[in-house]
């Protein structure tokens, strides 16, 4: 059903935008650096130079300068001040901010169109995965043989911490960012997100925080592990201040994005789009958004306390001053475990959507799937202390938290039932998204089962802090979430670019990454079982072979991801044209033309049934 659209060409150059006409990523970086220098300069004058906190105070002011400068440079403060002065955006301003008639430049500006923000999230996710991937290669190269031959321990420890945080950042936004922004508003029949300007704010605050997080490596690194436990983090240099500042900004960015997603789904669904006609991916996005809204303020306060300890001589986490690092551990993990489900649920929801379309069958037990996601996010707020079973914080709480943690395997089990149930007796179309989905199924079983071992307190006393834990969460993050994110990328790539992600290169990449994951993290399980602690720069000869195998596997994953990168870059411009609905799916985003018009729909769609009716000719327009 391709509607022919007459091009109402309005010849004039885009008017409006005011100051925003001159603001883009370039001015943002320049303003950021200038304000960072101003912050550095003021701090050196303002603070007393021979106090213990001086270098931290200067670093924090520099980071604050970078943030404020970057936001001024990109144009984030334009709207609040125009609101303050009462001259709201004119229609032309709104059109300009929506990136109307600006071609490729709109991707480098404070553009509010949810489709542009979606593409920007793709770029940010891929660059974060790139940086994290490079660090992963450095870590595995270091561990190829016992001894510290590649880099010394301090550099290695910084690589571990920044690899961890950058990858966590990348995976939090990997599915909810690009597809929660590009696809979800169209799926519910909305013209744009509820708060378009806040949408751009979330993206650009994430960029400013990610840049600061990566510069931590340049200012002395962060040799303390990504959980920045209070006691060891106190020994870190100014890199810790940059890290804490980046996290404080990142948590605000994610909370604002969650507000945006939830409001869009609650208030902007089109006529007829009742809750039980919502595509399952929309459910996944808002359940994640609610969980993130609850969880990320804890991370904000945990890192704010850390910043105050270092700059204002407070004693939140300093035993000598009456503080305790268990407070930091609790605040951190109150966010920490909900965070890993904020990472998992969007990928699972995207795979539900893909499984239904690719099997040409309705999603198996739709309500149970939604119920499982709700139950999982509810439970995930009650399990945080299983990260602290062995910390000695509250031995009597070992039992209760074992109970809540092991209950999580029930909703997670439902995910398998729904996924395989959808594929069962379907006409499974073995295209790129489907292949990555089968990879997900294989890896998520291993990731899920090994989670149960770690939830058993007596067994956790043997496995906690070993490479077994590292292998477990890599099977979940890489084996399940990354596979789901790549499946989503392959599935919605035609809607973004109008071209298929190259099938053949996608399969080469799949097999390389899949086999690489089994080798790398399979051998890592064995290292962990044999007793190799986590985050060790060097290790006993007993772990020689398993680490060597793990590193070989890591090189295989690297080459697989490079092939995927090559596929994305070449397919974006020169891939095989796909038309507006290559997978013949029923969800709304496939009923609009590609490239998607600025307002998504030419007239408001009316929904008469849920999007899982295959066989009858497409309805709903």
């Amino acid at each position, binding site marked *: 059903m391709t509607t022919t*659209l007459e*091009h*109402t060409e309005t010849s004039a150059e885009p008017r409006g935008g005011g100051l925003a006409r001159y603001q883009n990523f370039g001015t943002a970086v320049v303003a950021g650096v200038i304000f960072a220098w101003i912050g550095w300069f003021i701090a050196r004058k303002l603070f007393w130079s021979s*106090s*213990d906190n001086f270098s931290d105070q200067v670093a924090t002011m520099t980071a604050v300068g970078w943030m404020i400068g970057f936001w001024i440079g990109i144009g984030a403060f334009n709207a609040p001040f125009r*609101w303050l*002065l*009462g001259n709201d*955006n004119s*229609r032309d301003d*709104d*059109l300009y*901010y*929506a990136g*109307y*008639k600006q071609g490729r430049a709109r991707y480098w500006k404070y553009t*509010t*169109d949810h489709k542009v923000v979606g593409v920007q999230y793709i770029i940010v996710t891929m660059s974060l995965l790139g940086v994290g991937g490079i660090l992963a290669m450095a870590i595995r190269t270091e561990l190829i043989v016992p001894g510290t031959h590649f880099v010394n321990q301090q550099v290695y420890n910084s690589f571990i911490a920044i690899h961890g945080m950058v990858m966590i950042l990348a995976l939090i936004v990997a599915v909810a960012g690009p597809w929660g922004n590009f696809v979800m508003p169209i799926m519910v029949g909305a*013209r*744009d997100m*509820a708060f*378009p300007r*806040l949408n751009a704010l979330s993206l650009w605050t994430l960029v400013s925080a990610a840049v600061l997080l990566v510069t931590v490596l340049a200012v002395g690194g962060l040799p303390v592990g990504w959980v920045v436990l209070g006691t060891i983090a106190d020994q870190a240099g100014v890199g810790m201040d940059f890290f804490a500042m980046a996290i404080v900004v990142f948590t605000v960015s994610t*909370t604002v994005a*969650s*507000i*945006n997603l*939830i409001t869009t789904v609650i*208030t*902007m669904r089109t006529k007829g789009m009742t809750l039980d006609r919502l595509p399952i991916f929309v459910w996944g996005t808002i359940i994640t958004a609610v969980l993130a*809204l*609850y969880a*990320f*303020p*804890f991370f*904000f*306060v*945990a890192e704010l*306390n850390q910043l*105050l*300890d270092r700059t*204002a*001589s*407070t*004693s*939140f986490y*300093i035993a*000598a001053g*009456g*503080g*305790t690092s*268990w*407070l930091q551990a*609790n*605040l951190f993990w109150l966010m920490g475990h909900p965070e890993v489900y904020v990472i998992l649920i969007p990928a699972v929801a995207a795979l539900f959507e893909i499984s239904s379309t690719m099997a040409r069958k309705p999603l198996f037990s739709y309500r149970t799937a939604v119920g499982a996601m709700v139950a999982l996010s509810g439970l995930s707020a009650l399990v945080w202390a299983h990260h602290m079973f062995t910390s000695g914080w509250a031995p009597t709480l070992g039992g209760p938290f074992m109970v809540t943690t092991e209950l999580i395997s029930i909703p997670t089990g439902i995910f398998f039932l729904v996924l395989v149930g959808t594929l069962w007796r379907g006409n499974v179309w073995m295209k790129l998204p489907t292949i990555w989905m089968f990879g997900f199924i294989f890896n998520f079983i291993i990731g899920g089962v090994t989670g149960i071992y770690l939830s058993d307190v007596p067994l956790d006393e043997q496995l906690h802090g070993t490479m077994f834990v590292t292998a477990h969460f890599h099977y979940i993050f890489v084996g399940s979430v990354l596979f789901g994110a790549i499946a989503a990328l392959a599935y919605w790539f035609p809607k973004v670019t109008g071209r298929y992600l190259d099938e053949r290169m996608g399969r080469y990449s799949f097999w390389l990454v899949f086999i690489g994951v089994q080798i790398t993290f399979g051998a890592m399980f064995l290292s962990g079982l044999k007793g190799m602690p986590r985050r060790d720069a060097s290790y006993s000869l007993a772990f020689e072979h398993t680490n060597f195998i793990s590193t070989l596997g890591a090189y295989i994953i690297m080459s697989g991801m490079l092939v995927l990168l090559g596929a994305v870059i070449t397919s974006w411009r020169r891939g095989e044209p796909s038309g507006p609905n290559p997978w013949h799916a029923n969800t709304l985003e496939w009923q609009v033309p590609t*490239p998607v*018009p*600025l*307002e998504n729909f030419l*007239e408001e769609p009316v929904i008469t049934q849920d999007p899982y009716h295959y066989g009858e000719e497409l309805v709903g327009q």
Partner: protein
Amino acid sequence: MSIADIEPQSEMHGGTPGHHESPEKVDARQRVGIWLFIGADVVTVAALLFTYLYLRGVDTAGHWMSMVGFPGHLHTYSEWENLYNNGTLGNPKPVYVGVLSAGLQWLTAALTVVSAGVLWFGEKSLRATKNAKAFSPFAIVAMVLTLVGVVVCAIQLGDIPQIFVGANDSITMSYTTYDSAMMAIIGSTLGHLVLLAFLGLGLAIRSARGVISGDKWYQVRLVRYFWVWVAISAVVSTLITTTINTVH
């Protein structure tokens, strides 16, 4: 020029082109947004109070309100450093900091409550008379009250006593955990008051310039939701910090 750049026609576009969407729809949408923002703020304030109560409960080595060191108000930092360096410091004694003034805390809470009341009253009259210009002074008064609150918070932060403690090869300044937690809570209240002042100023200018008119007064109501929440959070945190503080 690709299809994406077709001139948008419809009235429906929320907040972007074709933007004279009906105020009721914009109000309904922004109301959900404000409530979710308040929800996130509730969790943040809860986390700050959790920090306060947790540290009080743990009271590691009795340092909730006392620390072995030298009272900060006797000398400045450099004077303590010189005393330390030429060894005439004497040995440190436990310094007990005592509770921060409940009066100032209740004053801050009262200012938030009164400013919220002024705003609400102004809103009621705006809704009744539809005269936006008359609302502007209410917004100004509310803003001024919050700015007074900012000053009071700054005074409280200044009152927090410092203690100088030896740190293996030098002397350094530190706060007890009670003072640290109070610094975070008072700092958070200060931040919220600055945000309220900004919002109040915005409402004042917008109503004076007629941007907030008869059918667009919902913007005041949305700001009032957040304002009332900040007042509630100020009262609740003050209630906690003034009643649950000393450790017997």
